């Protein structure tokens, strides 16, 4: 579906640039990609929000989130697998400033969990912003009246799995995704009796399940961090299943992003080879039927 960009009302023109440069700049400094594209106001707001979240997180956690890692796991590249890696510039500064902390165990600050959640959320938001910068560099003209943008659609899936698809008008898909992923995550929490909702206890699995987004954080602050004398019987199954639910939400975000991107760029949304072949066969049959009707009309009309 081609879109008439000349007749459509547009927002102020932004400068198109190299998508990879915009993406990498955003990775290191939130908003820098949009500043490169000439959108200074948006860049400033993005920088303040994302770095503000990270700074608040560091203040609440006293910069101790990497101290959750046991000594044998504190390698040079261990922080690369944390959600904070989405905001790379802040994470590198964090490592330089705090590292793995003191060489002896220390008590956690009273708002440690809130602090580490905020730094992780900052990383996720910056990944969404990176995808937005990449898209804006390729498609600087934003038409009004178009469906929700790709980065926003993906970001909505972070709020509730399937919300992006729902807003795109694919309501059945959105509801199905929400039921499947939130249901799977809830069953994981029941199996682990809430023990999976604890970054200190399951550092990397927590990173996986936090991809589910706001639902995972709400569950954590409502039912997480249980005081246990021994681990529940099926804690392993709960931890793994919770992580699977979070990782599957990445596919859901990519689905939402791809659909909106196709709508904006006027290309065909992603389809399986079988579905595409069926559509092509239907189009071919329709074209043949039209051609036969035309030839019939021509033969019936006297010369």
């Amino acid at each position, binding site marked *: 579906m081609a879109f008439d960009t000349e007749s459509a009302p547009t927002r102020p023109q932004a400068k198109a640039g190299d998508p990879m440069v915009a993406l990498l700049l955003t990775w290191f400094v939130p908003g820098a990609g949009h500043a490169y594209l000439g959108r200074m106001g948006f860049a400033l707001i993005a920088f303040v929000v994302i770095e503000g979240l990270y700074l608040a997180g560091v203040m609440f956690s006293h910069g101790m989130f990497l101290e959750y890692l046991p000594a044998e796991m504190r390698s040079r590249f261990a922080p690369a697998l944390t959600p904070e890696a989405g905001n790379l510039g802040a994470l590198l500064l964090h490592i330089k400033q705090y590292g793995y902390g003191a060489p002896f165990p220390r008590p956690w600050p009273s708002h440690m969990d809130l602090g580490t959640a905020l730094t992780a959320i900052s990383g996720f938001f910056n990944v969404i912003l990176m995808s937005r910068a990449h898209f804006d560099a390729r498609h600087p003209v934003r038409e009004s009246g178009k469906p929700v943008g790709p980065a926003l659609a993906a970001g909505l899936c972070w709020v509730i799995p399937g919300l992006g698809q729902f807003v795109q008008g694919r309501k059945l898909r959105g509801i199905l995704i929400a039921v499947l992923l939130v249901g799977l995550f809830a069953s994981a929490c029941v199996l682990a009796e809430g023990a999976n909702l604890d970054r200190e206890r399951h550092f990397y699995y927590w990173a996986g399940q936090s991809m589910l987004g706001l639902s995972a954080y709400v569950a954590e602050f409502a039912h997480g961090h249980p005081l246990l004398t021994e681990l529940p019987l099926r804690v392993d199954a709960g931890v793994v299943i919770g992580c699977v639910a979070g990782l599957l939400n990445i*596919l859901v975000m990519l689905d939402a992003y791809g659909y909106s991107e196709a709508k904006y760029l006027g290309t065909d949304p992603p389809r399986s080879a079988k579905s595409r072949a069926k559509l092509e066969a239907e189009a071919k049959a329709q074209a043949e039927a039209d051609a036969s009707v035309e030839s019939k009309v021509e033969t019936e009309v006297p010369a």
Partner: protein
Amino acid sequence: MNNLWIHTGLFVLVSSVIVAISCMFADSDDRAALRSFPRRWLSFMGGCLLVVAVMLVLEHTFASIH
């Protein structure tokens, strides 16, 4: 044996969700995605059974204690 049934049930639950989300990711058309679910689920289960068989053979051959 109790554990086996519980683990099998959990595996079926998780694999169904994995395949359902994969179907939707692979096809933007909802009807086509739903139609492809049984075939994809059977393929997924077949692949997993194959992995289980290979692991059991390897365990029996190289890792069993006599």
